């Protein structure tokens, strides 16, 4: 269980996140929705340890994550896929994947983890020794998700995985996330502007606007609240 309590983050005096609280259960998908600049990315970056909150806490199980470095948070079993995937273009596909497993120092498991990712995303197997630079947009996102899985996380943080991808690829990614969640017992925090896709797979949903929580519902309920949709998501 990941618990966020009264989290506030500000950049240069401007509040990006203002007292947001959130619980992510150990199984299932939690979607965080909201318009541009609502503070969605800030929330996910604060959980991953990339930005320091001004107030509030993040805890995972019984451990306090606030103040921990990103590399320590990964070791707690929390992996983040940054916006745009964040693949390292100068490295090959294989190197990108290996990199995420190195801290476990377990060569036998490395091979196993690699095989699992290749089975999950067959296009990556064909391009395994090519520079990550040469991948298409969809393949990059596969690499990004696959790479996050290499560290065998319990909680996966996804920042806008559908950004800039064709609808077909988006639904493939969403389906994969759903399957992973079901088969491996992962819990997922999914930050999305593409609310429809996100709600189609999410269990719980949180709606953010201007750094504050506007609504927190079962995903199925939020999908039917037309007023909220019009007010905050524009359609």
């Amino acid at each position, binding site marked *: 269980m990941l618990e966020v309590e009264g989290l506030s983050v500000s950049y240069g005096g401007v509040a990006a996140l203002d007292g947001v609280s959130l619980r992510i259960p150990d199984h299932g998908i939690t979607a965080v929705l909201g318009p541009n600049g609502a503070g969605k990315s800030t929330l996910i970056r604060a959980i*991953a340890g*990339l930005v320091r909150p001004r107030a509030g806490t993040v805890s995972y199980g019984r451990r306090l994550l606030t103040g921990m*470095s*990103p*590399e320590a948070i*990964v*070791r707690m079993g929390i*992996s*983040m896929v*940054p916006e745009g995937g*964040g*693949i*390292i*273009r*100068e*490295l090959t596909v294989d*190197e990108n994947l*290996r*990199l*995420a497993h*190195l*801290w476990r120092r377990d060569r036998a498991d490395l091979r196993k983890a690699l095989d699992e990712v290749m089975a999950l995303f067959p296009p990556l197997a064909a391009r395994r020794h090519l520079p990550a*630079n040469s991948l298409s947009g969809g393949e990059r996102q596969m690499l990004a998700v696959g*790479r996050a899985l290499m*560290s065998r996380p319990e909680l996966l943080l996804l920042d806008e995985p559908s950004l800039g991808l064709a609808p077909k690829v988006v639904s493939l990614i969403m389906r994969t996330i759903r399957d992973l969640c079901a088969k491996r017992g992962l819990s997922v925090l999914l930050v999305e502007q593409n609310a429809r896709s996100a709600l189609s797979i999410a269990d719980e949903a949180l709606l953010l606007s201007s750094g504050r929580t506007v609504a927190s519902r079962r995903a199925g309920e939020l999908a039917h609240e037309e007023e909220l949709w019009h007010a905050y998501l524009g359609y």
Partner: protein
Amino acid sequence: MNYFFVLTLTGVAAGMIYAALALALVLVWRATRVVNFAQGAMAMTTTYIALAVIQLTGNYWFGFIVALAAGLLLGAVAERGVVRWVENGPPLNAVILTLGLLLILEAVVPMIWGAQIRSFPAPFSIAAMQVGAAFIPVSPFNLFTVGVVLLVMVALLVLFRFTGLGLSMRAAAFAPEIARLLGVRVGRLLTFGWGLATMAGALAGMLVAPTLLLYPNNMDAILVYGFTAAVLGGLDSPIGALVGGLSMGLALSFIGGYLGPDLETAGALAILIAILMLRPQGLFVHAAERRV
């Protein structure tokens, strides 16, 4: 013996030394996007330490090992102690900081060991070798220089290409934030990178001293040559540092041989300016690899 041939051979030997210092600058640049203007002064310092150890133990190789170890330590301490705080600041700050380190080292070393010029032992003869009746203008020490720098290059290549540590170091250099998200302890690797770089610099210092002697600013000119070599190689590429170093060694050997030895540094300056004007990003960096 053909004069041109002589200059070529001496140029290669000198070029390997410039390559070692260029390699140090490249490793530091890759890790932290800082040009370490104190690299020469650090190498001078570790060479003084080596001299003290050699005089104490009477064994060159003790001094050699201690110099490399001292380089590892000095670089790591410099990064963790002071450079860490300017790594993400304006480039001007990092430059002035490393110049401060240069001044401190070039002042503290003569406080301890005096400012006079000292001779430095070589593990092998620095006299030209005799083959049959002919002298060839290469000393056993020259051969040692070429061999040991090549060895270091190969070792680094293996480290970067084939080990997890090397992969982490490359990732930390290319995309530090992403690397941290993947569990790479970037801070430690930057410290290690500086240590490794300063070790390469220490090697350059050990190779310079037997022929050019040891005094507190004996590496100033070598720093300029090494920097030029590193820029020639793109500042980002260890192979580029080797090619750049060799090119500089040859060019300076010809300039010194044909125009006069006092023009070597001025020649290096002219080459540096010419490269920077033609390709400000260096010759060995592919356009695609450049980051904004």
